[in-house]
C-alpha cells in the first residue's frame, strides 16, 4: 500500500531524515517509534505532503507520488491527524468534520453515522466550537475528521499525547476497529510504549533520522523494541 525508498527530508539546509525505507499495508497498524526530535513528525509531514521530502521515492498503491500539494494528496486518500490536532477553533464540531467533504463527490457528502458511533462525544458536542473542546475531545474530533473522506492511508501523530487513560483506551479501540475493517493502512507515531506495542503489527524505530530497527511484531521481542526506543 505505502512504500518509501531512501526518503530524505531537509528543513532549509539541515537534514532531518536519512534514507528512510518504510512500508505499510492495509489492515495493519504500522508503528513509528523513537525519542523526541528524531524526525517522526517530519516523516508524517513528508507522507502527507505538508513538507515535501527532498529525495527518495514514495509510492501509494503502486502509484509513484511526485511532490503534489497537500490537498492533492488528501484527495488521493491520505488522511492526517497531526500532532497538536489542529482543530479549526472557530468552527463547530460538525463543520470541522465537514471540511473533509472537499475530498468527496457531491452525492457522498454526509457525515457517516459510524463516526458518531466511534466517538459519541462528537454527537453530543456537534454544535460546540472546536476550540472550546477539551484536549481529549479535540483528539477524537481530529480522528473523526480524518475518517470522513474514507482514506486509504491514515497518519496518526501521537494521538495519546496529553490525553487521559479512558480516552486513550477508546482511541485504541477505534484504531483496532479500523485495522480489522481492513480498508486502510494505519501509520501510528507513538511514544506511549504499551499503547503502541499493543496495537502494532509492524515496527519502525527511528534514531536520529534513520531507521534503526524494523520488523513485524512476531519477528521482534518486546524487550528488543523497548531497548531500541529508550534513551
Amino acid at each position: 500500500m505505502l512504500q518509501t525508498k531512501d526518503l530524505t527530508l531537509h528543513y532549509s539546509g539541515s537534514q532531518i531524515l536519512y534514507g528512510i525505507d518504510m512500508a505499510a499495508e492495509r489492515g495493519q497498524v504500522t508503528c513509528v517509534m523513537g525519542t523526541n526530535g528524531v524526525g517522526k513528525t517530519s516523516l508524517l509531514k513528508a507522507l502527507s505532503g505538508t513538507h515535501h521530502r527532498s529525495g527518495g521515492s514514495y509510492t501509494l498503491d503502486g502509484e509513484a507520488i511526485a511532490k503534489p500539494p497537500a490537498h492533492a494528496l488528501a484527495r488521493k486518500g491520505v488522511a492526517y491527524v497531526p500532532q497538536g490536532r489542529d482543530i479549526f477553533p472557530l468552527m463547530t464540531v460538525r463543520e470541522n468534520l465537514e471540511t473533509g467533504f472537499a475530498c468527496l463527490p457531491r452525492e457522498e457528502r454526509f457525515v457517516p453515522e459510524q463516526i458518531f458511533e466511534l466517538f459519541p462525544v462528537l454527537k453530543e458536542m456537534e454544535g460546540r466550537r472546536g476550540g472550546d473542546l477539551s484536549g481529549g475531545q479535540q483528539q477524537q474530533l481530529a480522528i473523526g475528521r480524518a475518517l470522513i473522506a474514507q482514506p486509504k492511508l491514515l497518519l496518526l501523530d501521537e494521538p495519546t499525547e496529553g490525553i487521559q487513560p479512558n480516552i486513550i483506551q477508546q482511541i485504541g479501540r477505534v484504531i483496532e476497529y479500523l485495522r480489522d475493517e481492513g480498508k486502510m493502512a494505519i501509520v501510528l507515531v507513538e511514544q506511549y510504549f504499551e499503547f503502541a506495542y499493543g496495537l502494532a503489527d509492524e515496527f519502525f524505530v527511528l534514531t536520529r533520522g534513520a531507521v534503526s530497527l524494523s520488523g513485524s511484531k512476531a519477528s521482534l521481542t518486546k524487550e528488543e523494541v523497548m531497548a531500541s526506543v529508550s534513551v
Partner: protein
Amino acid sequence: MNQALDLGLDALSLASIYFLAAIGLAITFGVMGVINMAHGEFIMMGAYTGYVVQQVVPDYTLSIIIALPLAFAVTFAAGVAMERLVIRHLYHRPLETLLATFGISVALQQIAKNIFGTQARPLTSPAWLDGAWVLNDVVSISYIRIAIFVLALIFLTLLLFVLNRTRLGLEVRAVTQNPRMAASMGINPDRINMLTFGLGSGIAGIAGVAIGLFAKVTSELGSDYIVQSFMTVVVGGVGNIWGTLAGATLIGFLQKGIEFFNPSNTLAAQTYMIIFIIIFIQFRPRGIIALKGRAAGD
C-alpha cells in the same frame, strides 16, 4: 425631537454607506488579514463601471440593474488578478502588502484619470429614486438613502449566508483559521484565497455603483472611503461581519454627532473622530464585537 430624528436618519444612512464601503474590506482585511490599500479603487472601478453602462444603456433603471452584477464581475476579476499577481506572494508580510497595494492604488487612480479625465462623471439614479420620503417639515429622507440602507441589509444577509451556510464559506473559514490543516483536509487554499479576495473586491465594486449614485464619480472617489473603511472594520472587530455592521453604525453616528455640534469645521470633526477611535481601540483592542471564549485563543 424632530431634529434628533432627522439627525438619527442622517447618521443611519451614513452608517449604511460606510457599511457598504467597508464590507468588502471586512472580507479581505477582516477575514483574510490582507491590508489592501487599493480597496477604495475597487469602489471607484465599480462606480465607473456604472457610468460606462449608462453611456451605453440610456434607461436608468435598466442600466443600474446591469451595472450591479457587471461591477461585481469587473472588480471580482480585478481582485483575482491582483491576488494572483501580487498579494499571494506577500501573505504574512503586512508592511510589504501595504506598500505594494498602495502603489497599485495610486496606479489605478492614474489610469482612471487617463481614461475618464479629471472632471466628475455623473452616475444618474433612476427617476423613481429621486424623491424623498417626507415625514414632516423637518424630517425627510431621500429614497436613494433608503435604497442604500436596503442594499446594505441585503449585503449583510447575503454575506452571512455565504460565509456560514455555503460550502465556499466553510472552506473560506477553514483556510483562514488554519491553511495548512485545510489543505490536509483536501481544500485547495490557493483557490480559496483567490476566490475570497475576488469576492471582497467584487462586493467593493457593487458598493461603488451605490456610492456613485449620490457621490461624484472621480478618480479620487476611492480615497474618500479607504480610511473610514479601515476604521469601520477595526472598530467593529476584525474577522466578523456583525462587527463591521456595528463599526459602521458607531462611526456613522459619531461623525454626524460631531458635525452637529461642530457644523462648520469638517477638519476638526475628522480629527475628533480619529482621536475618539484611537482612545476606543485602547479600551477595546479587539473591536466592538470581539470573539469570545477558549476558541478565540484567550
